[in-house]
């Protein structure tokens, strides 16, 4: 197969690969191409799109969803799903606002919101990992429960506090950049570091790739699974605090449906719902695409109903391209098309 002359070359640099490998190429830059096309399109057709203040506005508007999606990426990488993050936004926001009104200093209120989110995530993770319940069902249950909790605490009414002490985390600026954008960047740096540069991250991928093999290779699978929900919960808690700061109030309806936007961003970013494959950078780009799309469409005065139609098409299109990539890939390796297991 390989010619002998090739073996004389340095082993680290494989010389002859496939002439053009669509799958690999798309994996690296495909999603960026989509984003670039979208940005150029909007810059040309949407009035005021390319202005700095508008771009910063987009960045701020995506921060809540992007932070949610960062946590969701961890969960989906293990092959799980977390439907409860939208409800966690409401609960953590409510708790943070009430405690701030009660006199808790701003940093403590923010922390408390995150801790509440992390605790909800811990419950999700423990129920999934140690009770062996399906994450979809567990988080469907906690989604409903936590929404109910948010309504119960607030008696169904928004709690408005115009003097909210942590409002800057949603509305403030630092060196001209919105604070939520800075928070979002920090979250992504942490997430990237965890996934790409630590043993923990490798274990997250391993659990998603094959939980049984991970167990036999010495990965504490249950602990990893619990931890990703905890992380997703903490992210949701933080997003909830930012959301509450943005609207300067505790809204029991906050974050309704946000879990689906977060999942969309993750999937757009190329992470496989089956787990084990995907990158955090992709998720960030996926969030940006969704943000650019909705802001651009608003600027172009596209009616809200039509925006939904377009957003739906974009999501399906992105996933279709991903699936096409998989098919190309399996064709290239000639794998059996019918079963999920590949042939040797």
């Amino acid at each position, binding site marked *: 197969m390989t010619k002998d002359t090739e073996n004389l070359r340095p*082993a*680290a640099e494989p010389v002859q690969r496939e002439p053009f490998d669509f799958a690999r190429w798309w994996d690296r830059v495909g999603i960026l191409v989509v984003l670039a096309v979208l940005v150029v399109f909007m810059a040309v057709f949407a009035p005021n799109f390319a202005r700095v203040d508008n771009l910063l506005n987009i960045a701020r508007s995506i921060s809540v969803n992007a932070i949610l999606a960062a946590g969701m990426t961890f969960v989906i990488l293990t092959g799980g799903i977390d439907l409860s993050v939208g409800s966690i936004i409401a609960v953590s926001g409510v708790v943070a606002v009430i405690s701030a009104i009660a006199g808790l200093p701003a940093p403590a209120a923010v922390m408390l919101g995150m801790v509440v989110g992390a605790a909800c995530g811990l419950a999700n993770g423990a129920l999934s990992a140690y009770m062996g319940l399906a994450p979809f069902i567990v988080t469907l249950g906690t989604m409903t429960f936590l929404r109910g909790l948010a309504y119960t605490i607030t008696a169904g009414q928004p709690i408005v506090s115009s003097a909210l002490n942590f409002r800057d985390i949603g509305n403030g600026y630092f060196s001209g950049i919105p604070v939520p954008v800075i928070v979002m960047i920090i979250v992504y740096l942490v997430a990237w570091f965890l996934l790409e*540069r630590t043993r923990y991250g490798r274990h997250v991928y391993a659990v998603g*790739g094959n939980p*049984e*093999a991970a*167990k036999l290779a*010495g990965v504490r699978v249950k602990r990893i699974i619990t931890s990703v929900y905890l992380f997703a919960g903490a992210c949701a808690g933080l997003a909830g605090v930012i959301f509450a700061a943005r609207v300067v109030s505790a809204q029991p309806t906050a974050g309704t449906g946000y879990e689906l936007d977060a999942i969309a961003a993750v999937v757009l970013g190329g992470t496989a719902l089956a787990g084990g494959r995907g990158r955090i950078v992709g998720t960030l780009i996926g969030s940006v695409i969704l943000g650019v799309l909705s802001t651009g469409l608003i600027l172009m005065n596209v009616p809200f109903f039509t925006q939904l139609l377009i957003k739906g098409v974009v999501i399906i299109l992105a996933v279709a391209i991903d699936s096409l990539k998989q098919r190309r890939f399996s064709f290239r390796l000639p794998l059996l098309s019918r079963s999920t297991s590949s042939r*040797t």
Partner: protein
Amino acid sequence: MTLSAPPLLRLEQVSKRFGPTLALNKVDFDLHAGEVHALMGENGAGKSTLMKILAGNQPRDAGRILMDDREIEIRSPRDAGAYGIAIIHQELNTVPDMTIAENLALGHEPVTRFGTLDRRALDRQAREKLARIGADIDPQRRLGSLSIGMQQMVEIARAVSENARVLVLDEPTAALSRAEAQQLYRLIGQMRASGVGLIYISHRMEEVWQLADRVTVFRDGGHIGTARMQDITPPDVVRMMVGRPMGDLYDHPPRTAGDIVLEVEGLAGNGVGPVSFHVRAGEVVAMSGLIGSGRTEIGRLIFGSDPRDAGIVRIDGKTSTPSDCVDAIADGIGMVPENRKEQGLFLGHSVEDNVAISSLDRYVTAGVLHRGAIHAAVAEEMARLRLRANAIDLPVKSLSGGNQQKAVLARWLLRDSRLLILDEPTRGVDIGAKREIYEMIDALARAGKAILMISSDLPEAIGVSDRLLVMRGGRIVRELASAAASEEDVMFHATGTAGDRTARGHGGTQ
């Protein structure tokens, strides 16, 4: 079987190309009615491609396919069915949670006049199909409740329609116990007698000589030769498969055992035991026995993947009481599990990730992974195992079965485990890779590792090991020195019956 009659099925100069690879290069193949024609070759030789063409899953690029001397076109699995060609794949294509009857009718369920499912017809048809292959099973049972062997019977019953003329079996006995395999052989005999032509793909020499009338060998997509079984010997076939003489597959220079590494006392749990034994450094100990005799369970108890009821396990004199695999690995134990794809590998991940996963703690400073160091260390282990260096970034699923198994072994080489538990290390790998894996096992033992090997392949268990522990009913019933052991000895103790030697009665249990 009359060879003078026109063959039932004939392939002439059939070719198939996948990208740059010529998977089949102008191969000829013929099959007569009432014949078992074995098809052998290493992985990648083109057997699967031929099978896919016959099944209608892949179109051929060139050549002709003739049935009864008339040219036919197989464009889809439906066409294949219409010509009476049935394929039994290695992996079962059934739904375990449905009943046997429902599985048998999958895709063409009988309906009543009103368009609803006709349960009575479903049941009747199922009984007919099962009767046709001589299987006596209640069609109302859930398929998943059957043994793998019986599930395969159901799959054959489903594939074999009334007009079945050609049956292709792809390594059908790979997952079967001996008794189940015997049952399959009987079924094959019946089908041959009724005039069906069978193409039998297998790596196992003994069964090919037991079953087949002729054998064809493929290598690198080419047809190397076809011979009647009485005109050829297993070494001939091996030579045709690998393109060179193999020597003795298990040949290894004598080894000297060192200190005791693994010491097991009264270990029980998981429904097996108690067992006591030891493995020394530089020693390969094989656990032999029938499927279900408790070999894998013992391995899992030592490795901490199942809870123990009783017993002591020591590694290098230190007691090892792992509560999970993580602890066992920390104690110096490595495990190559029975089912490579399901338990051993992360198929979509790179070779590097697959090899490094168990040793990441060694390459961490202040929580940060040393990726360069990991890369270099993995590359080094790959070189030791003669794994292609440019494979390091490829997904492990793109490797051949033998190379995949090497990746799992490399994981424990990198970890530098003291004891390696190898559960069926050569299942599903071709003969060339087998040879390399045996050489690796030998090299590992020489490097001072203790190796506990579980194997259903008797010649392998005897040939590769220094000592044999024969298990039956969850206990070790006999220890044998491999050099002096014969397959009959092992079977005698493993079955607890006299087998061929009726005179010995129920000996062997001490």
